[in-house]
């Protein structure tokens, strides 16, 4: 065949997949049969391992259990628990509940957005910090409340957040 296009093809299968990732994935695959029925459990295991479902992971999984990537992605998007973007290293969640709001939570959130140059719900380009908001953490006595990496604390000010962000950026929480 003159046009053995598989030789020159833009090979989609060669997605940048580090050896480490492939190794971790194959350990997960070993736990299951190569079967459609195990799809959800495998997806959960992958998310537990990597924190999210990456394109490479879904691609390798599709090769393993011979379901199309599109179908796997379709199944995964059906469930709210699956994420498809790498979560940030640190997560700042500002409480915008009534008590926190009247105590200046909006200014704190503004400060975070301006300092990091991103909007609520986004992650910084280096993947270090993401900011979000919730509507009450159930500890309104401490308003304004900010949650940094699952640690809830109160009495926040824009200046305090500013310093915290600096520390997070440097690497020490």
């Amino acid at each position, binding site marked *: *065949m003159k046009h053995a296009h598989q030789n*020159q*093809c833009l090979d*989609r299968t060669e997605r940048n997949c580090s050896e480490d990732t492939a190794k971790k994935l194959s350990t997960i695959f070993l736990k299951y049969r190569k079967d459609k029925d195990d799809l959800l459990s495998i997806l959960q295991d992958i998310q537990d391992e990597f924190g999210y479902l990456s*394109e490479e992971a879904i691609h390798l999984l599709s090769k393993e259990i011979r379901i*199309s*990537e*599109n179908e796997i992605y379709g199944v995964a998007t059906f469930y709210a628990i699956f994420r498809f973007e790498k979560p940030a290293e640190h997560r700042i969640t500002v409480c915008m509940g009534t008590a926190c709001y009247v105590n200046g939570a909006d200014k704190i959130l503004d400060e975070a957005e301006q300092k990091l140059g991103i909007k609520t719900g986004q992650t910084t380009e280096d993947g270090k910090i993401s900011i979000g908001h919730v509507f009450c953490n159930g500890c309104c006595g401490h308003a304004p409340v900010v949650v940094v990496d699952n640690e809830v604390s109160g009495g926040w000010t824009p200046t305090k957040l500013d310093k915290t962000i600096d520390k997070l950026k440097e690497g020490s929480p």
Partner: protein
Amino acid sequence: MITINGKQYPFKAGQTVLEAATAAGVYIPTLCSHPHLTAFGACRLCLVQIDNVRGLPTACTIPLTDGMNIRTESEDIQRLRREIMLLMLSEHPYSCLVCKDKDLCVKYNSCTTKAGKITGCNLCSWKEGCEVRKVVDYLKIDEITYPIHYHDYPLKREEPFIDRDYNLCVLCGRCVRVCEDIRGIGAIAFLNRGHKTRVGTAFDMSNVEAGCVFCGACLDECPTAALTGRATKWLAKTEKRTKTTCNFCGVGCAMVVEGRRSTVMRAQADLEGPANKGQACVLGRFCIPSFFNAIGRLRYPLVRKDGVLTPVQWEEALKAAADGLKAHDPGDVRIIISPQVTNETAYLLSRMSREVLPGSIMELDSAFDTVALRSSRELLGNAGSSGSLVAINNAGTILIVGADLHLDHSVLRVRINAAHKRGAKVIWLGPMPQGEDRLVDYHYPGTDYLDKLAGLLRKMAHDAHNFEGSNEFLESLVGFKDSKESTELAKLIRGKSLCILLGKGVLMDQPEAVFTAAYNLLVLTRSPRGLILLLESNSQGISDVSGLPTAALESPPAAKAYYVTSGNAYVPKEADFLVLQDIFESPLMERADVVLPGTGMPEDAGTITSLEGRVQALDPIALAPGMSKQDWLIVAKLAIQMGGAGFAYDTAGQVTEEMFKATKVKSLGLIAKDSYAFKLHTMEQPQRTAHSSPTNKNVHGHRGADIVYKVDDLRRLYKYWGVVE
């Protein structure tokens, strides 16, 4: 017997309520069911009432039992259906559907408005085929009470061939199901859930990246205009619609083609096509209109005058051609037949060669087909595949050798996929296109086909003793090596019925020896009907009616005058007279002395034979462009001009009739194949000389043109696949 709406009807076991009702002519509204897809029960529109069955079951999922009393319409059912439809329509641009002037609009405003974004039926290109409109009319919906939930998805118009507007999608899932279940591709899937559900690809990559092969099956399934074919959707209303046969490859897909004057408007797979069963491929579905309407068609007979090809009348051109051919000794005349011409043309050409130019040599312009047909005639006694395509469905193991089922014969993937789902093992020898790994169980990429097959035969040698010719066969096997692969392969193949698909990739190896090996394998596995040759368009038919290819000549004498029906044919520079009969301008025209404009498949009448030996009719849908004539007629007139007798025909039908009497092609339909002597043949040692294939210069050569370079979107797709630059 069952009762539908008070009337009694017979039924077949295994039928669903919907199938029986449709067969009985009772309309039950539905959007998600399709005769070729398994029942899904998604749209809930086919609710019916059945005595002694609780609730209102969906007609598409309920199997019939004797004595069922079914009611398809009642106040309750219609109310529910209406409510379901209203919910569906709240996401669909519905203003035109409920417009009080709808009927008048259809009557007086029939022109399609060429808008990109469809916000109502008056802007829609698929108004006439729309199934949503049909259901709305049936349910008499004239007001929509729910708030508008228009999704405002962006249009997707950057992909080849298909425009996608998912704002019109009703989530019936037919495209998703046909892609996954029937085609085995899975290029699209349902994403998200609830109100946000949509059809799409993983990580929203383009469909090309997601593995789409653009077979157009999704498009044919779509009940709305969410998916439309870009090239043809805004063409004017069609005048005529007919069933014909695609001749882009040898599968023999039955197509429904629409046309208007000299333009082919649309081609769709015929649901009842015996070979394709409602499926087509990117070539048949999208390229028929684009290719045959493309620029560069030959319109006038041309004769070289003072070194310049000049348009002339037919009489003059035929005279010039006849005089030129007659001026040479018939032994110096070479007739080269393109695999794309009809049986009638080939039949008349062979008569011309025998009666008018006795001693002239005919050739089939396809390296693989020539070798394949010649070898099969030597081995089986019959030139061609040993069985029909049903062999694929029935096989326990399918061995694909040197084929590329993404480019050629890709409709066969549908059968392979069905067999694979049923449990057949699919083994692929040779380079494999991306995206086939879900279909193929074992892949051996090397092109040393003969070594692999011979090694395999060695492993299976102790099965050989029961067959005639086993001693010589076993002796001839001695020189071949075993390999790890052949041990694996033997395990997979032994004891199951085998089907071997041989593609033109075997030209890279020793084709004749590969054919012998494949045939021996079929003998050892006792699968006499398992040999499928992936032939080009009409090679099988040409071989049947003209006896081509003739026995191989050591060194064919160079001819002086050439009469060729394809601009792709190899004509040496020394040739001093060349008559070219083609449909497109081609480089060979520079050297042609006479150019005769022929016709392509949508303009042709006659018959063609598929690779399984099925004779099917061509029905002309478009007028031949300019002064061009159907090929058989040109050949007949040329023969008369050269003094041939008995070449006066009025219609292609008369040629067909005569051909049915004079050749082994006796009627339309599958030609019965003789059972052949079931014996082993000796294997030849490999000589390791690369087989060159002079006609293999195009990707999809069709007469003198290459489909890829006539259809821009196909070129874009192949560029991504890396097939063309």
